[in-house]
């Protein structure tokens, strides 16, 4: 077998600007700064980047090396921010590596997002042509595949309706259908199956399996361990931009699940707030998801109880603080919102003291996927702090209780059900 993709010492650096420091400068200052920088950049294109002290470097990928052979179906696993998307972007030539080398043999098609370039005002038919062209298909190719695409997407009746009137399910189906008919030699797919209904997810996975059996190479990123395990034969675990483990998919998933019990999160206190008033009087400084053994983790089995450790610091002595927490899915769908004052819990704080709170959500059993918690502090209905997506955590479906259930892919919540004849 020959290597179709070989990656040697691939690194990618991002330069993060600290915009918060510039936040208070006037528009005039920014314009002057902008022009100065533009001029400097035109004169000395290389020097400018080095000489701006308020910028910080961040390595999204560091010395990544591996080979992929023809026909391999490789799952790429890692926590959010581990570098998966950066890796895929480099392989799809959207962004350039900072150093290192990749050699790819064969036509690559990448699907980093469903429906890129879809225009809501255009009809389904128009969007098929447009999207196909954006993904690199020729008009003749699209014409040949047109009927197949429409049949796969099950949108025959709505071909001449603008896609803005489509249901989200139809939209996703159409978008995936176009991409699925690219027939590349190497297919790169980012977490796109997180959207769409379960039946269609199954269909997409089936299509991707077909792609795999035709001797094509597939690179697949997902948080859904079941799909990865089903589709892929080998895996790569990325963590903080470094390859942590490679090998059979079972081994890599196991390593990922064990590895993720050691938390690696950004402190909630550091996260930017949407409004400069937030976090001044009282502020979240830390938050962790906690499993039923009391361990702080970001990865849970489905069916496991989830709770959260929260730390709040107040600038002055204050009574009657209420905590709000909202739980969202990966697709920003709100599952539930809980308010401490509704349960009769109000918190008090001394000046500069840290309050530690544990909030648990017993009986809430989520389906596999990635979820985020948005946190807020309220005082007499007034928002003192509000952190959107303060923490993320993942539910993996590999749990003893639920392994053999067919229903796991449908909906967001697992619940007990009792059935009887009446």
């Amino acid at each position, binding site marked *: 077998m020959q290597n179709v993709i070989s990656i040697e010492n691939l690194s990618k650096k991002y330069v993060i600007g600290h915009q918060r420091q510039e936040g208070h400068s006037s528009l005039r200052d920014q314009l002057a700064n902008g022009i100065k920088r533009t001029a400097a950049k035109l004169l000395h294109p290389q020097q400018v980047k080095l000489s701006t002290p308020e910028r910080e470097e961040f390595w999204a990928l560091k010395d990544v090396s591996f080979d992929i052979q023809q026909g391999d179906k490789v799952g790429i696993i890692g926590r959010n921010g581990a570098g998966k998307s950066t890796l895929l972007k480099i392989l799809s030539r959207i*962004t350039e590596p900072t150093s*290192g*080398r990749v050699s790819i043999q064969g036509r690559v098609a990448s699907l980093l997002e469903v429906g890129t370039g879809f225009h809501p005002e255009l009809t389904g038919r128009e969007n098929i042509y447009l999207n196909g062209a954006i993904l690199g298909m020729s*008009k003749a190719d699209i014409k040949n595949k047109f009927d197949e695409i429409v049949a796969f997407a099950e949108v025959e009746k709505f071909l001449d309706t*603008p896609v803005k009137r489509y249901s989200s399910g139809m939209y996703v189906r159409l978008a995936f259908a176009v991409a699925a008919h690219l027939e590349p030699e190497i297919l790169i797919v980012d977490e796109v199956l997180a959207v769409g209904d379960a039946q269609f997810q199954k269909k997409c996975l089936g299509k991707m399996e077909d792609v795999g059996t035709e001797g094509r190479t597939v690179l697949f990123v997902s948080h859904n361990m079941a799909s990865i395990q089903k589709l892929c034969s080998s895996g790569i675990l990325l963590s903080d931009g470094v390859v942590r483990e490679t090998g059979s998919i079972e081994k890599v998933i196991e390593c990922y699940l064990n590895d993720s019990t050691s938390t690696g999160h950004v402190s909630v206190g550091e996260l930017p707030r949407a409004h400069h008033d937030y976090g001044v009087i009282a502020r979240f400084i830390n938050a962790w998801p906690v499993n039923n053994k009391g361990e702080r983790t970001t990865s849970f089995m489905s069916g496991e109880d989830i709770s959260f450790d929260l730390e709040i610091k107040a600038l002055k002595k204050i009574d009657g603080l209420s905590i709000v927490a909202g739980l969202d899915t990966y697709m920003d769908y709100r599952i539930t919102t809980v308010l401490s004052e509704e349960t009769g819990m109000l918190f008090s704080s001394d000046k500069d003291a840290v309050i530690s709170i544990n909030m648990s959500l017993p009986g809430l059993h989520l389906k596999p996927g990635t979820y985020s918690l948005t946190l807020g502090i309220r005082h007499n209905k007034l928002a003192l702090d509000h952190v959107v997506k303060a923490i993320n955590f993942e539910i993996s479906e590999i749990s003893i209780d639920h392994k053999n259930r067919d229903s796991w892919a449908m909906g967001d919540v697992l619940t007990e059900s009792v059935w009887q004849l009446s």
Partner: protein
Amino acid sequence: MTQIQIIEAGRAERHYWRDLWRYRELFFFLAWRDILVRYKQTAFGVLWAVLRPLLTMLVFTLVFGKLAKLPAGNVPYPILVFAALLPWQFFSSALTEAGNSLIANANMISKVYFPRLVIPTSAVIVSFVDFLISFTILVGLMVWYGRLPDWHILTLPLFVVMAFAAAMGAGLWMAALNVKYRDIRFVIPFVVQIGLYVSPVGFSSAIVPEQWRLLYALNPMVGVIDGFRWAIVSGDTPLYLPGFLLSLVLVLVILITGIIFFRKTERSFADVI
């Protein structure tokens, strides 16, 4: 036989121009999308492409021709104005559309690979389609005033190409700069607004004193517009040759540096946008 593709830092894409060719259909798909979308849910539709220059021409004829009584030689003032309005409106709308095109398609840039040159170019093509549509008004005007063109009109394609090059060059500069410096969003309308008055759109450049003509031609649109007029009114307006050549050289410089600058910054678009 499949070719091997190498991805490396700073590697000049050897296949760039071949890729551009491979994606040639995308130019037209994107232009087609923008044209389709532009006139969806409008009552007058494509009529807008005709109405805007027509009304501008009427106002300019009234203000510059009737009120200010600027000279037009023996050319009907509406034709004088319209012959200049065609390239100017093409240039200004192409500059605006191309300048904002990368930002408007940011999502595509961060999710799919294709030669980025496609995006601003197709924006210019969209403006070019409008240009062709409003050209029919000119034909109508010429028939109305009984001004049939002579051999001069044969040079018109040359000036159309020049207008295209000017719009492309300036559009690429603005588009590439706009990715990093959103200030450009404010600069473009300003350039377009001022440009209308410093270019000989509402008046003939014959009213510019002889000794300032060369300096005036530092505005490359002066050469483009004078050329258009000259070709359309059969040489009844002057074409000041040194000035025209200076404009031509400037257009070429803007186009070539525009392409170079765009290609150079293109690699980091996805990271910056």
